[in-house]
C-alpha cells in the first residue's frame, strides 16, 4: 500500500508514469498468445510458466491460489516498477500487460501485499524494439530540462524567503512567500513524484495524520505560511523550518533530473496540474492563510501549458481537433486569470487575494478549469497516436 501521506495526485502521477512505461495501448484481447506468462501465486510460491519472453507486449495471466490477497509486479533489475496489479483476492484471476524491451526483469508476487515478495527472474530478448517518435524523445528531454531549470531557479527565490524568516522580518517573508513556490507549482507532478519530498515541503495542515504533532511533524511552506499570516510572528521553530525547507528543496533540485518522465506522463502530468487547481486552488484551501492561491493557479496552468506545448506537434498530427480545442481553452483560462491580475503585464504574478473573490468568480474559474482539464485528459492518447 502507498503511504497515506502521499496526496491523491501523487498516486495518480506514479500510476501515470507506470502506464507510460508499459505503454499498453491495444485492446487486451488482441494480444497474449506466445508472450503470455501464467503466474500462479500462492502464499509461499510465485510460479511462472516461462522465464524467456520476446520483446514487445507481454501479458501476465495471474491466478491467486493462495489464501491471502496478493499483488504481482513486473520489475526492472533495479527494482523500478514496470507494471503492477494490486489487490488480487484469493481464488481470483487478473491480467497484467506491459510493453517491454529486451533485458532482464523480475516477476514478484507479494502475498499479503507486504515485503519484497517472492521473485522470479525472466529474460526478454529480441523482438521488435519499440519504435518511438524522436520528436517525443526530444519533448521529454526538453521537459526534463524545464523541470531542472525550474528547480534551479527556485532555490535562490526560496532563499530570499527563508532569509527573511531567519531575520524575523515578517513583511519581507510575506512578500517573497508566493514567489518562492512558483517553480515547484509549475512542475508539481514531477516534484511530487518524489513521494518523500512532497510531504516535507508542501503539506497542508489537514494533511497531518492522527497522532502527528502540529508543531513537531508539520514542516514546509504552509507551516511557515500559517506563522506569518495567522500567528503573525516568527519564532525560533520557524527559523529552523526555513533552514529545513532550503535543505529539502536542495534535495529536490538534486534529484529532479532523475525523475521518470515519458511523453504520456508529461501529458497526464499536465492534466494533473489542472486537477490540482480544481481540487485545491479553486476552493482556496491551498493557501488558506496567505490567500495567494491565484499565484499557484497561474503557475499550475503555465506548467501544464509547457508540457502541452512540447507535445503539441505530435498530438496535433494525431488529433488536430483536440489541440485546437486545447489552444482555445488555455487562452480562455489565461484570459480569465488576467481578470484578477492587480498589476504588471500578461506574465505578472501579482494577483488579487483569493478571499476577495466572490462565489460567482470562483464558479467561473471552476468552469474554466473543467473546460480545459476535460480535453487535456485526452492528450496522452493523442500523444501515443492511438486515436479511437
Amino acid at each position, binding site marked *: 500500500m502507498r503511504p497515506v501521506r502521499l496526496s491523491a495526485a501523487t498516486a495518480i502521477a506514479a500510476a501515470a508514469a507506470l*502506464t*507510460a512505461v*508499459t*505503454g*499498453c*495501448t491495444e*485492446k*487486451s*484481447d488482441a494480444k497474449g498468445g506466445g508472450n503470455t506468462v501464467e503466474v500462479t501465486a500462492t502464499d509461499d510460491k510465485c510460479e511462472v510458466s516461462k522465464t524467456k519472453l520476446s520483446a514487445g507486449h507481454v501479458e501476465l495471466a495471474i491466478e491467486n491460489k493462495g489464501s491471502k490477497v496478493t499483488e504481482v509486479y513486473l520489475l526492472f533489475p533495479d527494482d523500478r516498477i514496470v507494471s503492477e496489479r494490486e489487490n488480487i483476492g484469493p481464488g*481470483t*484471476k*487478473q*491480467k497484467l500487460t506491459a510493453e517491454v524491451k529486451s533485458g532482464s526483469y523480475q516477476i514478484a508476487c507479494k502475498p499479503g501485499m507486504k515485503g519484497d515478495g517472492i521473485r522470479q527472474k525472466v529474460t526478454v530478448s529480441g523482438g521488435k524494439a519499440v519504435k518511438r517518435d524522436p520528436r517525443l524523445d526530444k519533448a521529454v528531454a526538453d521537459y526534463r530540462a524545464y523541470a531542472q531549470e525550474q528547480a534551479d531557479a527556485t532555490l535562490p527565490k526560496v532563499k530570499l524567503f527563508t532569509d527573511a524568516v531567519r531575520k524575523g522580518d515578517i513583511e519581507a517573508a510575506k512578500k517573497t512567500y508566493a514567489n518562492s513556490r512558483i517553480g515547484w507549482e509549475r512542475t508539481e507532478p514531477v516534484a511530487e513524484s518524489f513521494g518523500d519530498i512532497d510531504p516535507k515541503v508542501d503539506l497542508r495542515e489537514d494533511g497531518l495524520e492522527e497522532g502527528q504533532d502540529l508543531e513537531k511533524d508539520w514542516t514546509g511552506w504552509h507551516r511557515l505560511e500559517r506563522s506569518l499570516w495567522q500567528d503573525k510572528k516568527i519564532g525560533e521553530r520557524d527559523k529552523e523550518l526555513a533552514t529545513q525547507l532550503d535543505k529539502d528543496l536542495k534535495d529536490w533540485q538534486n534529484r529532479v533530473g532523475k525523475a521518470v518522465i515519458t511523453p*504520456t506522463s508529461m*501529458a*497526464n502530468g499536465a492534466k494533473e496540474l489542472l486537477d490540482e487547481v480544481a481540487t485545491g486552488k479553486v476552493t482556496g484551501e491551498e493557501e488558506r492563510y496567505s490567500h495567494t492561491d491565484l499565484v499557484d493557479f497561474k503557475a499550475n496552468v503555465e506548467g501544464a501549458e509547457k508540457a502541452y506545448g512540447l507535445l503539441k506537434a505530435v498530438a496535433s498530427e494525431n*488529433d488536430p*481537433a*483536440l489541440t485546437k*480545442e486545447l489552444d482555445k*481553452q488555455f487562452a480562455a483560462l489565461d484570459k480569465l486569470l488576467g481578470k484578477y491580475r492587480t498589476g504588471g503585464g500578461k506574465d505578472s504574478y501579482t494577483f488579487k487575494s483569493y478571499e476577495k473573490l466572490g*462565489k460567482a468568480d470562483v*464558479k467561473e474559474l471552476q*468552469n474554466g478549469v*473543467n*473546460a*480545459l*482539464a*476535460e*480535453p487535456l*485528459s*485526452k492528450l*496522452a*492518447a493523442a*500523444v*501515443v497516436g*492511438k*486515436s*479511437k
Partner: protein
Amino acid sequence: MTEITSGTDGASIPDEDTNSASPSRRSLLGWGGAGLALGAAVTGGAVAVGRSGDETVPAASAGGAVAFHGRHQAGIATAVQDRLHFAAFDVKTDDREQFVQLLKDWTKAAARMTAGHEVGEGAYGGLAEAPPDDTGEALGLKPSRLTLTIGFGPSLFEKFGLKDRRPEALVDLPKFPGDNLDKSRGGGDICVQACADDPQVAVHAIRNLARIGFGKVAVRWSQLGFGKTSSTTPGAQTPRNLFGFKDGTRNVSGEDNSALAKHVWVGEKDGPEWMAGGSYLVARRIRMNVETWDRTPLGEQEDIFGRDKREGAPVGKAKEHDEPFLKAMKPEAHVRLAHPDSNDGATILRRGYSFTDGTDGLGRLDAGLFFLAYQKDVRTGFIPVQRSLARADVLNEYIQHVGSAVFAIPPGVRDKDDWWGRALFS
C-alpha cells in the same frame, strides 16, 4: 478522436434498432460479477454469447428501456419513474457551430444511455493512456426506464441570434407573493431531466452529459429527487409527498391522448413551428418546513389540504379518486385553490419529486418538493394556478418557493439522424 467530441461518425453508434459491437449494460448482466471484474479478459465462451448476438434485444425486451425516438420527448407522458436527477446548464460558448455539435453529441449519448448502453466506447477496454468515455458507474445496471428530456430556457434565446425564435408561451414567470428565490438554484439556458427507476442510472446520465459538455456548457444547478409525488398512470395510487399527503390526484394521465393534446403538447398552430410536439416546463424547488408541519394537529393538516390523510379522499368523500366537492372544503384549502375548476380549467401535468439535501446547518431537514409541471402554455397553465395558490393557500405557512426555472421543451428526436433542438437551430 473520440466519438463524443467528433460527433460526426454516426456509423459506430448503436441504438435500439441496430446491432452493436460493444456490450450494453444489460448484456453484462448475464455474465455476472466475474465479467465485470475481469472486463475484456472474461472467459471466451461468455464473451461469444454476450457479444455475438443482437445486443439491444435484451435491453428492450427486459422492459427496462423507454424508446428514445418519437414525436414527443420521453419523460413527460412516460409513467413517472422513481428517481430524478435534474440539471440546469449555462452555455459557455458563443460558437453556434460548437453548441450545435454539443446538442448532437448529447443526443447520441442520450440515445445510448436510455437504451442501457455505455457512452462512446464504454467504460473499459479502451486505451490505457486515456480516461474511458463512459464513467462506468451504471455498468451492470438495467436501463431502468431512463428518460432524458431536454429543455431550452428563456436566456438561451438571448444567444446565437435566437431572439426571434423565442416562443411567446415561454414567458418569464412573474414574481409570486412569498417567493424567496435563490438565483443559484434557478434559471439556466438548458435543462436536462433524467428520470429512472434507479438513482444511479439517473445520476450517471447527468454526470456523463455534464462531462461531454465541459467547456461548452457548465452545470448551473442540479437537483436529485426521490419518491415521485404524482402519478401519470390512471388507477394507480397517488404517491405521498413529504407532508404525508396525496397531492396531485387529478393529474393528466400519460395515456389520455386527448387530454395531453389539450393541456400538454404544443400543437401545430400553437406557436413557433419548431415547438410543435413539444411542451413547456416549470420547475420549482419548494422547501417544506417539515418540523413545523409535524407539530400541526391532524385536523388542521387535513383542512389545509382538503383531503383526509389516510385515504386521500377529498372532504366529504370516501375514495381518493372521487370527484371533489370543492365548496365543502375551506376556501383556502390547497386542493380547492389548485383545482382546475378554481382556475378556469387550467390543467398541468405534474411529475414532481420529493427531495432532501440533508440538513440545513440549523438541524432542519433541507427537504421539500421539486415541482415539475408540463403544459401547453405557461400563461394558461402554471401561472394562474400558482397565482391563486400564492395569494391564499394556507399551505404557504409551511412551504416556500426557493428555486424557479422555466423551459421550452422541444419535440422528440424523430430518428437516429435527428437531434435535440434540430428544428430550432435549422
